[in-house]
Each structure stands twice: as structure tokens, then as C-alpha cells.
């Protein structure tokens, strides 16, 4: 049911772990629903230089967590913020329909970590929304 890419990221997840002196941390989901993602970023000169995650969840949840760390690393904060759920799913060669919500979670966790980084650094900008 999962693509080879998903299985690869599930078996060999990139960037598992924690960053002790993280610039920002995001946590989304809850155990009741069976998915929790926690994501740490290190930002230097507005660039994400390190990123780590821990995930409680299904295969797709772990693979999307792993994939988003690969997509985000090396990007500017603004670029990283543009990473969509769709981009994560596509980078994994697709997800089964009932697992699409997992790619939501990964993007949300990254955005939460970026928000945390901004608020720690007084960088909150009014959102045009």
C-alpha cells in the first residue's frame, strides 16, 4: 500500500532525534488520535541548518516526518514555510488516501517549529490572512 519511497523513509528515517539547543520546537497531533510529531530546528542566518524529529504514529507519519526534514534542511525560514502537505506527499511518490492527513501533520509541525523560533526571537510578522 505504501510507495517504495515511503518504505525507505520509514525504514531509514533521516534526522531522528532531538536538538538540545534548538532555535524552535513544534509539536502537533495527539496520542488519542494515534499521531504525535515533534520537530526541532536550528536556525542560523535565517537558514535551517539542522532539523530533527520524533514521531509516534503509523508508517506514513514517520515517513512524512523524515521527508519534511530533508525538504527543509538548508532552506531559508521563508522557503521552508512554503513547503506544503502536497509537496511532502509528492516527494514520497504519493500516500494512500486514508493516510493523506499524515502529510498535513508534518507540514504543521514544521510551521509550528518556525513559529516558535520567530516568537522566541521577536520576529513575529503580522500575517496577511
Amino acid at each position, binding site marked *: 500500500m505504501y510507495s517504495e519511497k515511503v518504505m525507505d523513509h520509514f525504514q531509514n528515517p533521516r534526522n531522528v532525534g532531538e536538538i538540545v539547543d534548538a532555535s524552535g520546537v513544534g509539536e502537533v497531533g495527539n496520542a488519542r488520535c494515534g499521531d504525535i510529531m515533534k520537530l526541532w530546528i536550528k536556525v542560523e542566518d535565517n537558514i535551517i541548518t539542522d532539523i530533527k524529529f520524533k514521531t509516534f*504514529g503509523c508508517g506514513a507519519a*514517520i515517513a512524512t516526518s523524515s521527508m519534511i526534514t530533508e525538504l527543509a534542511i538548508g532552506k531559508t525560514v521563508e522557503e521552508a514555510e512554503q513547503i506544503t502537505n502536497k509537496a511532502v506527499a509528492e516527494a514520497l511518490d504519493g500516500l494512500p488516501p*486514508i493516510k493523506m492527513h499524515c502529510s498535513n501533520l508534518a507540514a504543521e509541525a514544521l510551521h509550528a517549529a518556525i513559529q516558535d523560533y520567530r516568537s522566541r526571537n521577536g520576529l513575529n510578522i503580522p500575517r496577511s490572512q
Partner: protein
Amino acid sequence: MQRIYLDHAATTPVLPEVLEAMLPYFSHEFGNASGVYSWSRTARQAVDQARDTVAEILGALAEEIVFTAGGSESDNLAIKGVAWANRERGRHIITSAIEHHAVLETCHWLEREGFEVTYLPVDSQGLVDPSAVEAALRPDTILVTIMHANNEVGTIQPIAEIGQIVKDSKAVFHTDAVQSAGVLDINVDRLHVDLLSLSAHKLYGPKGVGVLYVRKGTRISPLIHGGAHERRRRAGTENVPGIVGLAKALEITHAEREKENARLILLRDRLIEGLQTIPHTRVNGSLTQRLPNNVNVCFEFIEGESLLLTLDMRGVAASSGSACTSGSLEPSHVLLAMGLPHEIAHGSLRLTLGRGTTAADIDYVLAEIPQIVERLRAMSPLYRA
């Protein structure tokens, strides 16, 4: 890579003797059992003989056996059939919170059709309290349906005791024996049941064929209308090879039941003990009233699917929750009904042993699982070693 199948509660391989018994009826003795000519007579005899075999194992009359397309159809026929045929007498049904979806979804549908359903709770081991059945019975109760053994945690219900209670009421008593039929005594008089469902593919027979036992005198409407097959209780050309396979599988599993159960209980208990050495592990279900082949545990801080995927990569087939709902985001309704918190219920693992399971298989999984649990816990934000 080694391939170890530990999901016998989901389905079982067809035994070679069973397949052999079925083979003549596909291409050679392929007649429609309803004709008057020789091909038909051979088919009819095969079906009659299968019916006799099944009836004998159930302690029933041949005419009380209705062949269906499987456990789900049997459950639906039992519940809807009794509901429709008796709705002028009453519209109250009693069941339990831990039934298979084939029972629960059918009950939910009947609720939308104007029936009232009482879902009895279970205790922390998954047991229904017979006195709760007694308390729930009302003058308008037409049906009590409680499963014989649970498909997830293997808990065996006190069916005979409940049956005694229901007997004194006007309700009929159905048991879903899909998980127990190849393993436990399913004599319908000893169990005091009026209706009993079973499915061939859970007991080393073919998929797509099952039985509903219907005690003589039980009023039941058909689910599938049409020809006069199965004494007008289930229309459709008889699945002759399937029916022959079902009977053969039931015959073999019953003949070897006690010996095989003793073997499985040893393996099962060895597996349970081994898994319990992993910290933060709970065994789900009763340790005494339990199917001989069922192991169900929760490893805290990890989620079931990722565990299954990793086991699969190491050649081991297992399950989390019931097979037909995996892919769903809901944790097991059975574990929740037993009082487990959601986050723990998400991390359940069911290993169900079978005729092919060896001690070496158990050793293999006991070597693999602790590593897998450790690896997934290391990835889990909930876990602090």
C-alpha cells in the same frame, strides 16, 4: 528471508486435504445441485454429506444448517433475519460492545431502522457479565447476540451460561462463533444457542463460505431472496466446492482439536511470557478464558501500524486490531471497551498462532520484537527511557 505467519485470526491457509476434497467439484462434478440429472445428483450428494458433517459437529439437524458466503453474511442473516421476522413481537436487541463489526454495524443499521439496541459493557479482561444480560432482558427483547470468542483479544465468553438465561425469555440467542468454531466445542445444545455463525476461512477452509445454524422453530427472514435453496433461507446456486471444503476443514480441525490446542497453548504462553519481559508491556484479555492461539499485547509509547510494518520487513505477518478495519484511524473498539486509554490502545499487537506455527517461530519473534519496540520507542516523543 524467513516468513512467519502469525495472523491466523485474520485468515488461515486451506489445508491440502481440504483443497483436495474440493477439487473434483470445480471442473468435473461441476453440476448445479438443483437439477434432476447425474451431474446434479453428485453435487447434491456432496452438499448433503457436507451438511451432515457440519450438523454432527454442531450436534444439530441437517435441516438446521444454512450455508452462506461467510461469517459476515451469517451474522447479518442471523440479526436482520430475526429482527425482520419478529418485529411485530418486539424491537429490542442485546449485544456487547466488543462484537465484530459484522454484528455491530448491523445493529447500528437496525437502530436507524427503528430497533433499540443495548450494548453491554465488558470488564477489563473483555468478559460480558451474564447477570448483565439478565438485567437487560425486556419483554420486547427479540434477540441476544454475544460472540463466542473475541477476534482481537481472544477472550471466551460464558456462552452456555448466557444461553441458559436467554432460554427463560422470549428472545432467541445468537453467537458469532467465527473465531472459536475450529478450536472450541461448538455443540449448540451445550452452548444453549439458537443461532450460530461460522466462517470456513478461519478454520483452514476456503474463503467465501460460511454457516448459519438456525435452531428448528426459530423465525428468521432471508437476507438474500430468490430460488428455494437452503430451504428458502438463502437463495443462490450452492457453492459446492466451498461447502465441501468447509465441511472437510471443520471435520479435520475438530478431530485434532484437543491435541492441537494443547500444543498451541504451550507456544502461546511462551510467547506471552517472553513479550512480558519488555518494559511497559500489557497483555490484553483474559489469561484463563482465552483462545489457545491468541496473543494480544500493548507496547506503550509506540503505534501499532509502524510495529506491523517493521515486523513485515522482518518476515512476520501480524495484526493490530481487527483485519478489516486496519487502515482506519480508530483504535480498537474492543480495547477501548476494556478500558484502555486511546494512546495505549493505538499500540496493540495481535499475534495469532496456527497449525503451521513452530517453537522456532516463537523464538524468532521473541528475538525480533524487543529490538523493534526499542527502535520505535527511540523515535517516539512520548518515551523517556
